[in-house]
C-alpha cells in the first residue's frame, strides 16, 4: 500500500510546490465566474437564477484545465516508464494520481464555491447545494478527464485533445449536477433524485476511469 | 458610543481588518525566520556565496 501512498503524497507535494498547478484551477474558476456578470449584466435576480449553472460550468472547465498535465508531466521526464515497471498494478497507480489531482485541484473549487455564490447573489441553500453537488460530481470529472489524459499522452497529441475528448463524456455529470442544485432551491422535483444519480455517476467513473486509462497507457506504448 | 442597528457589520469589518493585517505581519515574520533557518543550515554546512568568498579572499 505504501507504494500508492508514496505516489499520492508525491503528486500532492508537487502540486503545492512552485510550478505546481494546485491553485490554477481555483483562480480560473474565480475569473470565469466573475466574467459572467459582465456579459449577462449585473441584474441580481437573473444571476441568482443562472447561478448554479455558472458555478457548475466554471468548475467543469477549471477541473479540466490542469488535467492534461496529470500524465504528460510524468511522461516527459521519464517517470511514467518507471511507474509502469513498478510492482503496483497500473490501474491503482493511475487512480492514486487521479485522487492526488482531485485533492489538489477539485477540492479547492468546492471550498471556493460559497465565496463565488455571493458574487452571484445565491442564497445559502443554493450555495450549499452547489457545493455538495460539486463535491459529489468532481470525482467523475477527474476520472473521465483521466481517460482523456491517458489517451492524449499515448497519442502524443498535447493538451488540446483532452477537452475535445472529455467534455462530451461529462454531459451527464453537468446535467445532474445543475439539476440537483436547482432542485434544492426551486425545483419541482426533490434534491435527492438527481443527487443520487450524480453520486452513481461518480462511483461508476471511479471504476471505469482507471481501467480505461491504464488500458490506454498500455496500448499506447509505441 | 452606540453603533446603531448595523453594529455587527462595523465590528465584522474591523475584525476582518485586524485579521488581514495581523496575518500579513505573521506571514512576514514566519517567512523571515524560515529563510534565516535555511541560511544558517547552509552556512553551517560550509557553503559560501561567491561574494562572501571574494570578501574573504
Amino acid at each position: 500500500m505504501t507504494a500508492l501512498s508514496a505516489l499520492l503524497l508525491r503528486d500532492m507535494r508537487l502540486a503545492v510546490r512552485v510550478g505546481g498547478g494546485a491553485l490554477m484551477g481555483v483562480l480560473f474558476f474565480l475569473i470565469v465566474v466573475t466574467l459572467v456578470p459582465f456579459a449577462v449584466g449585473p441584474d441580481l435576480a437573473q444571476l441568482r437564477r443562472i447561478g448554479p449553472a455558472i458555478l457548475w460550468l466554471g468548475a467543469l472547465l477549471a477541473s479540466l484545465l490542469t488535467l492534461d498535465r496529470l500524465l504528460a508531466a510524468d511522461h516527459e521526464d521519464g517517470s511514467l516508464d518507471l511507474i509502469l515497471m513498478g510492482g503496483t498494478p497500473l490501474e491503482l497507480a493511475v487512480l492514486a494520481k487521479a485522487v492526488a489531482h482531485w485533492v489538489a485541484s477539485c477540492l479547492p473549487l468546492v471550498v471556493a464555491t460559497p465565496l463565488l455564490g455571493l458574487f452571484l447573489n445565491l442564497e445559502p441553500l443554493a450555495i450549499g447545494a452547489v457545493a455538495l453537488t460539486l463535491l459529489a460530481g468532481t470525482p467523475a470529472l477527474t476520472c473521465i478527464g483521466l481517460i482523456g489524459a491517458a489517451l492524449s499522452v499515448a497519442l502524443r497529441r498535447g493538451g488540446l485533445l483532452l477537452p475535445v475528448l472529455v467534455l462530451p463524456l461529462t454531459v451527464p455529470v453537468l446535467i445532474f449536477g445543475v439539476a440537483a442544485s436547482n432542485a434544492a432551491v426551486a425545483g419541482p422535483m426533490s434534491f435527492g433524485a438527481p443527487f443520487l444519480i450524480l453520486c452513481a455517476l461518480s462511483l461508476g467513473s471511479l471504476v471505469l476511469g482507471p481501467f480505461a486509462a491504464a488500458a490506454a497507457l498500455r496500448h499506447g506504448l509505441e | 458610543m452606540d453603533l446603531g442597528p448595523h453594529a455587527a457589520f462595523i465590528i465584522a469589518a474591523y475584525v476582518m481588518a485586524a485579521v488581514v493585517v495581523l496575518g500579513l505581519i505573521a506571514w512576514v515574520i514566519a517567512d523571515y525566520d524560515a529563510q534565516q533557518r535555511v541560511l544558517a543550515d547552509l552556512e553551517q554546512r560550509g557553503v559560501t556565496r561567491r561574494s562572501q568568498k571574494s570578501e574573504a579572499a
Partner: protein
Amino acid sequence: MALIDLANPTRFLALAARVLPWLAAATALAFAAGLYLVWFTTPDDYQQGATVKIMFIHVPNAWLAMGVWTVMSIASIGTLVWRHPLADVAAKSAAPLGAAFTFLALVTGSLWGRPMWGTYWVWDARLTSVLVLLLMYLGVIALWRTVDDPSRAGRAAAILTLVGAVNLPVIKFSVDWWNTLHQPASVLRAGGPAIHPAILTPLLVMAIAFVLLFVTLHLAAMRNEILRRRVRSMWLMQAHAAQGA
C-alpha cells in the same frame, strides 16, 4: 543615499534592519491615533449612521490597492529599463501585500454595502473594478509562483504589471460604463459631497497608518526575498561545489 547605493543587497539589508523598528513603531502609533479618532471623536453620518466607520478601513485600502500596483509598476520599469537589481525583488514582495489590501477593501466594501443593499455583493462600479484588480494581483502572484528562476520571472512579471497598469483606467472606464448601462449610479458615495473635517482628519490618519504599514511590510518582505535569493544562490554553489565529487 542615492538609489544606486541601495542596489547592493547587503547594504539594503543593513538599511532595512536599521529602519524597520522605527517604521514599525511609527505604524503602530499612527494606527493608535487613527483608531482613537475614529472611535471616539467622529460623529455619525447623517444618512448612514455609525456604519460610516467602515469607510475608514475601506477607503484607505482601496487607495492602497491602486497605490501598490503603482509601486509595482515603478519597480517593473526599474527591472526592465534601469536593470536595477532590487527592482524585481520590490515588485515580487509587493504583490501579496497589494492583494491583501485589495481583498480587505473588497470585504469591507461588501460589509459596508450590506445594510444599504440588503445583499453582500452588488455589482457596483467601484467594487467591481477593485475585484478585477484583485484578479490581476492574483494573476501576477500566480506568474511568480510558476517560474522558479527569479530573473526570468522578474522580467515576465514586470511586463505583465506594466500592461496591467496601462489597462487599469480602461477597465475602470468600461466597468463604470457597464454599470451605468444597467443601474442608476449606486448610492455608495465613497467621497461624499464635501467631507466634514471631523471625518476627513481620521480618514487621512488612517490612510497614513495603512501606508506606513505597507512600507514596513514591504521592506520586511523585500528582506525576505533577498534572503530567499541568497539561499537559492547557495544551493547553486552547493551543487557546483559537489560537482567535483
